[in-house]
């Protein structure tokens, strides 16, 4: 079967490679390119462990063909911050938002996409936003805590950038 030439920009670096049409994006990222942040969990679009951002939106990389992603910009957990210090990454540590950690990259990549759209969510909204990410350890409580805490930090950082005024309420 003929391989296809594709271009993927992963975490800001452009890669040219040849893939079989049937190759899933998560395998291309992990096996061909060494980005092992996205994990292979259920492989049936249910668990969200493979979540990456494709052109800025969270997607499940087990349900995208690499050829479909040709030309796209992909962000994996490795590219979310330079030193693993994105507010979400810090908050997941501080709030014990993980135990085994297998779901964590997907959780964080979905949450990062969500907080861009909705910087000040309530707990119920956070739960709904993460419904496509399954965790079998934590019982979710600390994951919600972590996202809530990260949203507050990001809110405060934005406010600091705007001259130190923290607006109450938000939307």
């Amino acid at each position, binding site marked *: 079967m003929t391989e296809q030439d594709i271009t993927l920009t992963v975490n800001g670096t452009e890669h040219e490679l040849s893939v079989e049409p049937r190759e*899933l994006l998560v395998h291309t990222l992990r096996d061909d390119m060494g980005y092992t942040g996205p994990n292979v969990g259920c492989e049936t679009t249910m668990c969200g462990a493979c979540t990456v951002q494709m052109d800025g939106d969270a997607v499940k990389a087990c349900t995208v063909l690499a050829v479909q992603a040709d030309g796209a910009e992909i962000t994996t957990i490795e590219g979310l911050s330079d030193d693993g210090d994105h507010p979400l990454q810090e908050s997941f540590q501080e709030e014990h938002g993980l135990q085994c950690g297998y779901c964590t990259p997907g959780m964080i990549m979905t949450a990062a996409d969500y907080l861009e759209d909705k910087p000040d969510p309530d707990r119920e909204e956070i739960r709904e936003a993460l419904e496509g990410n399954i965790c079998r350890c934590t019982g979710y409580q600390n994951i919600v805590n972590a996202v809530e805490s990260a949203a507050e930090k990001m809110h405060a950082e934005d406010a600091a950038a705007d001259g130190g005024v923290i607006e109450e309420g938000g939307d």
Partner: protein
Amino acid sequence: MYPAQFDYEKAGSVSEAIDAISGHSDAELIAGGHSLLPTMKSGLAEPEMLVDIGDIDELHGIEHHDGHTHIGAMTRYADVAEDNTLWEEAPVVAETTEMIGDRQVRNRGTVGGNIAHADPASDLPGAVLAADATVHIAGPDGERSVEADDFFHGMYATDVGEDELVTGVQVPHEGTAGAYAKKPNPASGYALVGVAVRLTMDGDTVADARIGANGVMDHGTRLEPAEDAVEGQALSGDSIGAAGDAAGSSLDEYMVMEDQQASAEFRLQLLGAYTERALEAAGERAGVL
């Protein structure tokens, strides 16, 4: 879990896509791929060739016109769910897309892919029926349009022919009270039963009602007895209750879907309850309840 091997071609235009599938005995179109890829990974489908229509510019986007909105077939659920005009003018469509799958699925799955696939447990068919939408289809002989009522034929079967593709859905700006209520399958999130409602109000009176159901029959189905139960009178607890009682009355009970999650009998009970919930939500949205 790799799919079986296939040839792949990315179409740059609708005519390229039609040329690619015409005369090919075993080619499938792929849009967002969120129905097709899981089917292929599990070995239930092994097409020889995939024609990717996901990057065809003319199939993307939402256009608002006087009296209707055109949704390009490759428009993602997430984009429909964020469209303020659709929330105002056809809320049943906006609310339904917001309730499909999860965030990541809504970032990939497309309106055209959904209705062309016609999964009986999917959410959009009921909304397309309730909204009285028109489906635009292109093929080797040109373009044609089909009313939603004539579009869904059966399980995974629609009016779209072998060498045709859905190019878009036209949603009229009518019946601006609408809602979708569903009982999701707890594992998959697909609808065990989902009910989509569109009400055209004349003051407090329901001038016209359109109700479409998912998950109950082998394809999205109008619930005309429930529509009749609320039309021509003010929306009230009584009329909504009557609609719930009537919801399944025109359906052949032996044709009602049945699986390990829910018997036909239970589905019919859910159908009544969720018809009432959808009507209540639509009434609240219209400010008459």
